[in-house]
């Protein structure tokens, strides 16, 4: 390929590129980076709602010391990890199996895919409302069918710690399994058919083809999808806030929801910020892992 003569599209040394990126960069710096730094800053103050920030005392690192000894923080971290473990495991197993079963292009596939992504497009608030209705002890359809089909007595789904936890896991699986499915099926269809055919010629059976050829080849896609879901588990709070408010007790209170309740229900803005710092570190750590695996904005000419 002939090397194209370097045309001065963007005069080197001029400020033109900066003029193009400036509005977006300023908006992101003030709307996203500033809050992150502000969370760090506020975590050193004993600030509560109704008091002027100027009157709040600095407390040094004591919020952080309190945090590591706070049984509530440990409890919600455990709830978050347990929730993450169940939803991610089940969504991965279901999403990947379905993608492997249905990867062959067939007539009408696009209509089905359109339907599958609908749960992903529904607002979290609405997801919470729908499933709160379905799991409702009195009016809920789930109790009705459990009774009609299996003769079960009505359960107070959202009023029992274990059942409520099951309910939010179930809801998350309904909404997010399609995400894994869509990503994995895109990965499978991007695989070169030559490798698959070669493995067929070598006598690999269906199982060997899946576990020794296909899955290893889309390994990085699987890991990225997993990390994205893990980040979502740490970010999410809206569905639980609507369905259960985190309860009963703290059985469905994920880390993000706990920060929200600390800040605006118990009104401890400073302490909530300290827990938010923990959340930022977790999420940035996971994001960096994703960036390390695939950085879409890195071009080969990058220095």
């Amino acid at each position: 390929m002939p090397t194209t003569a370097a045309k001065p599209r963007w005069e080197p040394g001029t400020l033109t590129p900066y003029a193009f990126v400036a509005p977006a960069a300023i908006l992101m710096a003030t709307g996203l980076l500033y809050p992150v730094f502000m969370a760090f800053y506020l975590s050193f103050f004993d600030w509560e709602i109704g008091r002027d920030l100027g009157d709040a005392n600095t407390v040094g690192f004591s919020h952080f010391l309190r945090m590591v000894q706070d049984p509530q923080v440990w409890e919600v971290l455990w709830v978050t990890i347990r929730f993450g473990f169940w939803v991610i495991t089940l969504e991965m197993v279901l999403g990947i199996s379905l993608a492997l079963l249905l990867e062959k292009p067939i007539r009408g596939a696009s209509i089905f895919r359109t339907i599958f992504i609908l749960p992903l497009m529904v607002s979290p608030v609405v997801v919470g409302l729908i499933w709160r209705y379905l799991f409702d002890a009195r009016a809920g359809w789930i109790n009705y069918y459990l009774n009609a089909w299996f003769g079960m007595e009505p359960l107070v789904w959202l009023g029992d710690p274990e059942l409520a936890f099951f309910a939010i896991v179930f809801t998350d699986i309904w909404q997010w399994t399609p995400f894994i499915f869509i990503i994995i099926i895109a990965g499978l269809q991007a695989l070169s058919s030559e490798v698959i055919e070669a493995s067929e010629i070598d006598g690999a059976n269906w199982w060997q083809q899946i576990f020794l050829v296909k899955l290893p080849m889309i390994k990085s896609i699987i890991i990225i999808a997993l990390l994205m879901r893990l980040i979502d588990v740490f970010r999410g709070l809206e569905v639980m806030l609507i369905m259960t408010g985190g309860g009963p007790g703290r059985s469905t209170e994920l880390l993000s929801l706990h920060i929200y309740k600390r800040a605006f229900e118990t009104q401890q803005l400073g302490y909530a910020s300290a827990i938010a710092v923990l959340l930022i570190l977790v999420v940035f750590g996971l994001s960096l892992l994703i960036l390390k695996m695939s950085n879409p904005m890195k071009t080969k000419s990058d220095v």
Partner: protein
Amino acid sequence: MKNDSVRLAYYYTVLILLAAISLAPIWVMISTSLKDEVTLQGDTPVWFFFVPTMDNYQAILTGRGKFDTYLINSIIVAGSTTVITLLFGGFCAYALSRAKFTGRTFLANATLLVRMVPPAVIAVPAFAFVILAGIDNDLLALTFLYTAISLPFAIWLLFGFFKQIPEELEEAAIVDGASPLQVFFRVLLPLMSSGYAVAGIFTFRIAWNEFILALLLTGRNTRTLPVAAASHITEEGVEWGRIMAMGTLIVIPPLIFTFFAAKQIIAGMTAGAVKG
């Protein structure tokens, strides 16, 4: 041959089952919103055979809840967020994809990193800022935050679309002495319509669906639809017909987008993990 048709039948059975699972809860919401009190209070869930009524919609739109105001608020906030994000995000993605400048790599990486900032982290500082600056109950503050939140993903999506356009197309215009801004508007923008459509859908959806920040930053007159729907449960007692009517109104725009641009939405969703 027989084997093939058995296989096909089994494919479609699984697919139809999955489609039913995806659709059923959404249909429960839509159908509940169209039922009268008698049907709602009945002993058995009714899926299809009932006489639809618009009572619930009439109740929420003419009731004392100011639902019409909230609908307009949502449209204003989501609409302006989308316009500003596409305008500035487009400029930024264009420069990132075409120009070499000091700080380019830093900006690109920072953009990808702040993409995931959790809403719970933004909530407290945003609340603090609103108190300190005294701009309570303002749709502007909400639009500003939504724009900031939407920009990283929009930039990243648009960057991919700009990269797909061969730079040779711009040569002629550059030789004619066109400035980067002229190249952007005359050469690139006409080729970017699908890119802007995808980025626009994702941005609109973020702003339209967002709940936590809207809950904190809006007052009685500046609520958006998700806040109105959620507070209806606590303020008015649980009237499922009306709540589901609100839910249905919230879901309409995303559903329309999905049916018209499912392919592009899937491309946007998978872009993070699957390359090419």
